[in-house]
């Protein structure tokens, strides 16, 4: 493997790993804020116990999410110095704004929320929970704006003396259609992830008949959010596909392994073979017109084939192959879409069981729902592989190739070393995280003592308990 491949492997694996925790954090942060609001309005001890229980699951996740995010922050400079130098003028601005506008908010108010029990006035404590959620979602907005610029660069002019892009219109960067739809897609996916986790934990308890009333509540809350969220995720994702087909036609054509122009185009449920050396795979169960719909939003829309697109790109950018890894594109798209559809079915099933009043006793559903928590993690990963692999060979679409962005001064040995170190640390953190979450989730609600409800209720001083 070359230094370039290793640097790509490191960036891909650390980002994928980071993004296992990000959507859980964003999703759970909003759900915990909702639970906190329910408690604030009802004053019911059960709501308070649920808030604290899911709040703790959130915190264990945030810890790993935050520290893995630190790697991302520095990795641009470490492994992609040529890229950083080239794009910093445009790409750096949203990253700096992310810290100032969102990460500060999330990190400060998470401290206030965690240590604020019995210290903060109830209203302020509730507000802290919402500001954490807002900060988490806000962080994702700026990161997505930066990433979307790599997919579809806008709002810049090329400096004639350096040949580097210079920011010329921040409004265009923040209203990039790829960003707007991509961000919405990510937010909805986070809602799906957070609710699936909450549903899984609730289902686990219901199967064991522990705290049935409470966990029926949280199961209903998660289903009530999951159903609209997953349907919207599918819809928004489909529209995002149309937008990407406009700006990055390679990405979508590769996702269907469509080597030649077509119109109307069919969609294959599966294929055998395929990949960059095999342009004639055996397609199984072809659904007519579906690719036209997905890529163009019209019934008979035509889609350009990879060969034709490659010829166009060669004319524009010079010789070479501009086709991304078709195998990865084809299957990541299907893994994402099929699992998403299964998640929608699960949500419908859950709502039906709920409507029949059998939620606490529907054993098969509860069993499936417990294990379904894995699905959004796989979906999210597949979604990112579709998006990032589909941009290749570009690091910034049309402006810079990935091969030109890597740090020339960092040796293969150094990257191997860092890769081993990061893998080791990440595996350890992941193992501890899963161990702690499962252990905590199983111990359940008896850990939540009946403390005084609000600060000052019992005349005690407003001193936080030892939390850490």
């Amino acid at each position, binding site marked *: 493997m070359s230094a370039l491949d290793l640097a790509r492997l490191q960036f891909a694996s650390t980002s994928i790993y980071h993004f296992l925790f990000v959507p859980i954090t964003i999703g759970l942060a909003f759900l915990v804020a909702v639970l906190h609001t329910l408690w604030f309005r009802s004053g019911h001890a059960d709501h308070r116990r649920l808030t604290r229980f899911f709040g703790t699951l959130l915190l264990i996740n945030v810890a790993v999410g935050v520290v893995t995010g630190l790697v991302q922050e520095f990795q641009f400079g470490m*492994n992609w110095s040529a890229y950083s130098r080239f794009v910093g003028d445009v790409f750096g601005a949203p990253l700096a704004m992310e810290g100032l506008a969102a990460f500060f908010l999330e990190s400060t108010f998470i401290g206030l929320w965690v240590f604020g029990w019995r*210290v903060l006035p109830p209203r302020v404590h509730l507000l802290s929970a919402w500001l954490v959620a807002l900060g988490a979602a806000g962080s994702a907005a700026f990161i997505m704006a930066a990433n979307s610029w790599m997919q579809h660069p806008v709002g810049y002019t090329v400096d004639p003396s350096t040949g580097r892009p210079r920011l010329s219109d921040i409004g265009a960067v923040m209203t990039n259609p790829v960003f707007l739809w991509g961000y919405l897609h990510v937010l909805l996916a986070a809602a799906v992830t957070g609710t699936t986790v909450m549903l899984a934990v609730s289902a686990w308890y219901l199967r064991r008949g522990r705290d049935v009333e409470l966990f029926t509540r949280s199961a209903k809350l998660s289903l009530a959010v999951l159903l609209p969220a997953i349907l919207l995720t599918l819809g928004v994702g489909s529209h995002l596909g149309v937008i990407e087909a406009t700006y990055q036609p390679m990405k979508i054509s590769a996702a269907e392994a469509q080597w030649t122009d077509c119109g109307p185009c069919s969609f294959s449920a599966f294929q055998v073979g395929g990949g960059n050396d095999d342009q004639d795979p055996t397609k199984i169960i072809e659904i007519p017109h579906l690719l036209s719909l997905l890529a163009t939003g019209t019934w008979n829309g035509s889609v350009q084939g990879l060969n034709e697109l490659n010829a166009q790109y060669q004319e524009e950018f010079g010789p070479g192959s501009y086709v991304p890894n078709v195998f990865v594109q084809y299957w990541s798209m299907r893994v994402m879409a099929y699992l998403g559809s299964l998640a929608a079915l699960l949500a419908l099933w859950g709502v039906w069981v709920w409507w029949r009043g059998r939620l606490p006793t529907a054993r098969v559903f509860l069993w499936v729902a417990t294990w379904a928590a894995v699905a959004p993690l796989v979906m999210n990963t597949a979604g990112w592989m579709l998006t990032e692999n589909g941009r290749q060979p570009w690091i910034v679409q049309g402006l810079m190739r990935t091969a030109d962005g890597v*740090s020339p001064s960092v040796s293969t040995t150094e990257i191997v070393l860092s890769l081993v170190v990061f893998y080791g640390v990440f595996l350890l953190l992941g193992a501890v995280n899963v161990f702690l979450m499962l252990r905590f989730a199983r111990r359940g609600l008896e850990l939540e003592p009946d403390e005084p409800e609000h600060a000052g209720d019992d005349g005690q001083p407003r001193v936080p308990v030892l939390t850490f």
Partner: protein
Amino acid sequence: MTLPTVWFLVVAFLWTGFFVLEGFDFGVGMLHKVVGRTDTEQRVAINTIGPFWDGNEVWLVVGGAAIFAAFPSWYATWFSALYLAVVLLLVALMARGVSFEFRGRMDDARWRHTWSWCLTVGSALCPLLLGVALGNLLAGLPVDADEEFTGTVADVVTGYGLLVGVTMLALCVLHGATFLVLRTTGDVRLRSHRVATLAVWPTALLLVAFAVWTPAQSDAPAVRSIAPPVAALVAVLVAALLLRAHRDGWSFGATAVGIGLTVVSIFTNLYPSVLVSTTDPAYTLTVTGTASGQYALQVMTVVAAFLVPIVLVYQGWSYVVFRRRVTGPPPPDPAVPEPGPPAPLDEGALT
């Protein structure tokens, strides 16, 4: 003043703020096993920074992102040159960051022991490595005409860089100790006071070396080269006197000024360069040479002018909310009505 200079000041402000705030978090991390003999005492020490450390760490994230956005080549050259050091720094930051959350989650001596050590070692490595990284900006690295690092790992280890690293480490210990004195009661507070009075002299000695060596690294006028490190030294000496007088709040203030001025010294000596090239002075990265375009800097100036004051207000407010000393669990007898009995030497605290 030109916008690139403004952004150099913003970067210096963010890194200074980071060390003033996260500096005591690192110190508490290193000292929690020293000042806490029992598990409860160690938890008291850790909980003094519990609500703050996460928000404080964001100063580093924003400090790094501000360099990326305002001086892309500085960011690119600096972090790729210090590749393995940054890997180690990240491991230290990660080990420390999860320790806070993980340590208290299981009531098991070996478990807590393990995460306590992660916290201690991580908290020591961070200021050491960041100090080396900052020192190297001034000491210089082999950088070619294309702004690329051409050296090996050995070139990253500079004498001046190591001095800055060790000085930052000592300052963090001292700063953490004065913070603990301010935020705890009883035995933990007494032990913290002892650590602070012990740490203050080696720190002052390191700052003497720092105040001599730093101006020698640059040709900046005396007001920028000599005055700041000398002022940092004076602040630490004042802290020694205040510690002796048991003025808790003031001695913490003095160590904050000391660590802050040490970071300021690096930046005042560095300007107008941002990363010195030892290969050829002509290749030295400068404020004007690496700055982003006028429009990008204008946009970020507007955003920062709007958001930084808001951040300062809510972060400052969080310190007001948790201004009380951390005492640990209340005594089992609920008949004791006095909440958090004030320690005998409390006059300077919580002002």
